[in-house]
Structure formats: structure tokens, C-alpha cells
């Protein structure tokens, strides 16, 4: 297909989900109809994203200047390999979580389907836009329906918990968005543009530009949930419905991480003299979060801490900023999103079925629900980094890159955190799956329905497939890393 035509279709990734959402609100469909529109629409979204990825995977970025304005005035949509990969990844996670939500009846809420579609539009816009201010707008577009979902899609946790979690969630995100806007304002005031390509390499140009860039990076880091601003993640994520927790873990923090990768490499030029501070923050994130996970008593809370710890690994690749490290970081981003979502979904299936949150209240699942045990075990091994799962490939690539970069502290921290991750996951494994089966008087045999564990199983298999056949993704990640370090093709595509 001619790239002009593909380019002109880029805004559809945002427009179609929003129109579908409006249609679902305006036209009263029965619950099954809404869910069918949601799942089919998301499947079409993922298919289109995959087509886009295959088009741009090795070629130059596809750019569309909305309204066909001249390059220096237009607000561009840019689909390079990184953006398209993120589009596929986030779309696939949304689809899987939507299927889980349908299976767990979370999607019965009348507004569930439209809200998820608007989130999809926001995420697509955020990964495709080439404009800093539009990044802010699309992140807000992603967050506004999320606020409603936190309230709507509760799970038997009481009004009190719903409200408290939502209050923290909304307040932190509003504050962070304000911060992001301040950064964008300072950048516009000092550098005179908010076009990411036009800003390439200029983030450290003047005092004002550095200040604005650091504020933007800080805002994105808070949205990603790095220490010391990780509290809101671990305080709110466990309180949502498992389908929503999994969805948010696969989308929100990852979009922030994508923004960090893009901004830090293209605009901030890889940090330069700031890289020491970045490495310190990342290392502290990993250690603090994994130690926090050891003290948690609830499955989803443990996983929320691991979410923060894994973000540390992903951002370690960015902080080191060598081609090998960035490759490992991008690979880690993909693998950890898949693995993490699988873990959230399998734990969610257990919680929804047994109605228990605290570790130790449910035990002996290995005998009763062996499939669930296998799915959780596979995803857990993948997260720790045991071959043949994808985690092994990702961690070897990352640790090797850190060693080559001479960052032996990062190597030690990564290995230590991996061991502590194993300890923490063994705690969960022991509490849930070993021991005597609980509540024998109520049922015999398997309790967790197949359709609840199927989404997590698909993702666990994907983690295994990425571990055995990860070479194509590694090559793609390497191509992406080269594009991040030398964004000449990106800049040329946008500015012409």
C-alpha cells in the first residue's frame, strides 16, 4: 500500500474507537451486543495495528500531518516501529483483558465497553502522536475513562474501598498531568515548539529547556510509578476489579514508559550528565519495590509491587542508554507486559472464584485447579527469568548490556532483585497452590472455570513462545533502539 494512504489512516486508530464508544452509548444494545462490539472492535484494532507494524517494522516511519498543514505547523501522527509495536502490544492486552472482563461479568456494566474503547483511543493516540501537547491530551483521554472504570468495575470490595482508591488515583493523576502541562509550557516558552521531532536533541540546550524536559520526565516517571512516587500504584491497583487491574497494568504505566523512552532519547538526548541520577532512581525503584512485595499479604498487592519492580528493569535499559541496553529494555517492556498481565489475570481468576484476597485463605490449588497452577507457575517463572521463558532472554540481554556498559552496580541490583522476586513469588506459590485444599466441603474437583483462566493461559503461552522464538522480536527491538539513539529517520519523516 502507498504510505500516503496508510498515513491518512493513522488518525483512524483514535477516531474509530471513539466513534464506536459513542455509538455504544447512543444506541441501546443488549449486554451481549455491547460486549460483542467491544471484543470484535478490539480484535480489528489489533489486526490493523499488526498490519501497520509489518509495514513500518524495517522501513522508514509513516507520518501523517493532520489537515495536510506544512511540516512546521502540522500536528503529526507518526508510526515508527516503536509506536506500532506499542500499538500492537497495548491493543492485544486490552483485547485479552476485555475477554477476561466478559468472562468474569465485569463487562456487564452498561458503560464498560464504551469506556474501554475510549481508553483504547487514548492509548493509540499517545503512542502515535508526534506532538508533546497532544501526548498530554491523549494521556488525559486515556485517564478520564479510567477514573470511571475504577468506580464502576468494583468487585465486592465495598463503597469505602472504591472511593478511597479512586480518590487517590484521580488526585495523583491530576497532579501529575498538571506537572506534565507545566513541563510542556516551559518547553514551549524556551524552545518555541512542542513538536517532538523539532525538539530532537534540544532538551539540554538551555537552562529553561533542561528545566522543562526534567519536569516532563518527572511527570512521566510518576505516571509510570517509579520510586519514590510508586505509592499510588501499590495503594490503588489491588483495590480494583482484577480485570481492571490487569488492564491498567498493561496500558497506563506502559504508555508512560513509552513516553519516557521517546522523550528521554529523542528530546533529552539520552540524559548525558543526568544518566547517573536516572540509574540511581531506577536501581532504588527495583530494590524498594521488590522488598515491598515481600511484605504484602494479598496476591494482587504483591503483583502491584512487582509491577513497579519490573518497571525498574525496563527503565534500566533506558538509563544505561547503549544500543544493547535499549534493545533489552524494549524487549523487556514487551515481555514484562505480557507476563505481568498473565499473573494479574490468573490471580484475579483465583480471587473471583474463591472470593478471598488474603494469601493463606485459599490453599492447595495445585491439586484442585492444576491448570491455574500451571499458568501461574509458567508466568511466575517467566517473570523471575528462568529458561525457556521470555524472562530469561530479557534478563540475560539486560544484564549483559549493563555489564558491557560497565555498570556493575546495575548488574548486582538486577540479579539481587531477581532473586528477591523469586522469593516473593515462592511465597505466593506456597500460600496458594501448596498445602491442603481449602473448603473441601463445598465442592469437588476444579472450581475455576476454563474461560476465566484461558486469557492468562494465552499470555503464559505467549511468554513461552517469546522465550523460545524471541529472535524476531529482539531484531525488531534492536531496530527500535537504533532509531531511538539516532532519531534522524524519525525527524526526517516528520519534518520532511
Amino acid at each position, binding site marked *: 500500500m502507498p504510505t500516503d494512504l496508510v498515513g491518512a489512516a493513522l488518525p483512524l486508530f483514535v477516531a474509530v474507537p471513539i466513534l464506536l464508544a459513542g455509538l455504544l452509548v447512543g444506541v441501546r444494545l443488549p449486554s451481549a451486543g455491547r460486549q460483542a462490539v467491544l471484543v470484535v472492535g478490539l480484535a480489528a484494532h489489533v489486526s490493523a495495528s499488526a498490519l501497520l507494524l509489518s509495514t513500518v517494522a524495517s522501513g522508514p516511519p509513516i507520518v501523517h500531518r493532520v489537515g495536510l498543514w506544512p511540516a512546521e505547523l502540522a500536528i503529526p501522527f507518526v508510526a515508527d516501529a516503536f509506536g506500532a509495536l506499542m500499538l500492537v502490544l497495548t491493543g492485544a492486552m486490552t483485547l485479552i483483558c476485555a475477554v477476561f472482563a466478559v468472562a468474569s461479568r465485569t463487562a*456487564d456494566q452498561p458503560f464498560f465497553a464504551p469506556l474501554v474503547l475510549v481508553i483504547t483511543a487514548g492509548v493509540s493516540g499517545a503512542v502515535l502522536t508526534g506532538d508533546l*501537547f497532544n501526548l498530554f491530551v491523549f494521556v488525559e483521554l486515556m485517564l478520564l475513562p479510567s477514573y470511571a472504570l475504577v468506580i464502576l468495575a468494583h468487585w465486592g470490595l465495598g463503597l469505602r*474501598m472504591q472511593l478511597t482508591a479512586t480518590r487517590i488515583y484521580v488526585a495523583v493523576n491530576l497532579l501529575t498531568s*498538571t506537572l506534565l502541562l507545566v513541563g510542556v509550557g516551559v518547553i514551549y516558552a524556551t524552545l518555541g515548539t512542542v513538536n517532538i521531532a523539532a525538539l530532537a536533541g534540544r532538551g539540554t540546550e538551555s537552562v529553561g529547556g533542561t528545566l522543562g524536559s526534567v519536569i516532563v520526565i518527572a511527570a512521566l516517571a510518576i505516571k509510570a510509578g517509579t520510586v519514590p512516587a510508586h505509592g499510588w500504584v501499590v495503594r490503588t491497583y489491588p483495590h480494583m476489579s482484577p480485570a481492571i487491574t490487569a488492564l491498567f497494568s498493561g496500558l497506563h504505566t506502559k504508555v508512560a514508559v513509552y513516553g519516557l523512552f521517546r522523550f528521554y532519547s529523542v528530546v533529552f538526548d539520552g540524559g548525558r550528565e543526568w544518566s547517573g541520577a536516572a540509574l540511581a532512581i531506577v536501581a532504588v525503584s527495583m530494590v524498594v519495590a521488590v522488598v515491598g512485595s515481600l511484605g504484602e499479604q494479598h496476591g494482587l498487592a504483591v503483583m502491584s509491587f512487582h509491577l513497579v519492580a519490573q518497571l525498574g528493569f525496563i527503565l534500566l535499559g533506558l538509563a544505561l542508554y547503549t544500543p544493547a541496553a535499549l534493545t533489552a529494555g524494549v524487549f523487556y517492556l514487551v515481555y514484562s507486559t505480557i507476563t505481568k498481565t498473565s499473573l494479574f489475570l490468573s490471580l484475579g481468576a483465583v480471587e473471583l472464584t474463591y472470593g*478471598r484476597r488474603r494469601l493463606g485463605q485459599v490453599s492447595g490449588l495445585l491439586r484442585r485447579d492444576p491448570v491455574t497452577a500451571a499458568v501461574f507457575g509458567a508466568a511466575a517463572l517467566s517473570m523471575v527469568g528462568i529458561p525457556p521463558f521470555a524472562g530469561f532472554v530479557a534478563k540475560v540481554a539486560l544484564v549483559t548490556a549493563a555489564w558491557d556498559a560497565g555498570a556493575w552496580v546495575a548488574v548486582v541490583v538486577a540479579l539481587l532483585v531477581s532473586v528477591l522476586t523469586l522469593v516473593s513469588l515462592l511465597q505466593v506459590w506456597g500460600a496458594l497452590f501448596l498445602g491442603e485444599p481449602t473448603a473441601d466441603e463445598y465442592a469437588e474437583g476444579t472450581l475455576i*472455570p476454563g474461560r476465566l483462566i484461558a486469557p492468562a493461559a494465552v499470555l503464559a503461552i505467549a511468554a513461552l513462545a517469546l522465550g523460545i522464538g524471541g529472535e524476531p522480536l529482539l531484531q525488531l527491538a534492536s531496530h527500535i533502539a537504533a532509531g531511538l539513539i539516532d532519531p534522524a529517520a524519525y525527524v526526517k519523516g516528520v519534518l520532511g
Partner: protein
Amino acid sequence: MAIALTIALLFGAGVFMILRRGLLRVIVGFVLLSHAVNLLLVASGGLSRRDAPIGTALDPSTTADPLPQAFVLTAIVIAFAVTVFLLVLSVVGDGDDDTELSLEGRAMELPDLDEDDEIVAFHRAHQPTNWHAYLDRTDDTPDTPDASERRGVR
């Protein structure tokens, strides 16, 4: 200089209010903060050029930069929407706007996973015992206002 001082004052007041306990005060803090950011965005386009950017014969040295104004319009809409949502959050739940966990919990029903399955019976018999917002609550404590008071949770 005046605009810088105004922005600084609004930021200071906003941060002060956000650090208060009640959610309503926090919301007022957010309103002040968003005003500060809007002023900052307007100032980012330069304040000396004030002619309306309409028409064809425009002098770049006197015409205002329209881009920051578009930024501000967008930012106002978003901040307004989220503020209204926060206000709703502050009034639901026994009319208590405190950010402490002092709302009376109301048990929500579990979604039925399988209507014609014994899981339903299992659910009914085994409602989650941990309703509490804090995860560290012991699970055998019945979730009644009395019990919350006994445990010292307001």
C-alpha cells in the same frame, strides 16, 4: 514580572491546599494549580504581542501567538472535567469529604461467575470477609461500624 509573581503565588497556594487533609480543600488546591498552569501557558507565548491573530495582513511582531491559547483552552476543559469528577467523589459516601478512610463500607454484591453452577452457592456461603479498605485487616473481624470503632478506625 507581575505574571511570574501571580503564577508563583497561585502555585504556592495550590500546593498548600493540596497538602491539607480534606478532599474539598485538595480540590480547591487543584483549581488554583490549574489556574497557575493556564497562566504559565499563556505567558509561554509571550505577553507583549497582543493583536488578535485573525485576518491575512498580520505583523508577527505585534500579533499574539494563538498556539498557547489553544493549549489553555484544552487544558481548561480537561481540568474542569476532572475537578467536577473529584467534587462528585468528595460528596458521595455519607457526605464525608475527608481523605481518611472514614466512610462506612457498603457491601457490594459479587458478580456471579456462573449462574447455573455450584460456584454461586459457594459465593453465597463464602462472601469475601475482607471488605476493608486497608489490606492489613484481620479477616475474622465482622465488617460493622461497631467493629470499626472498636479497632480505632474512625
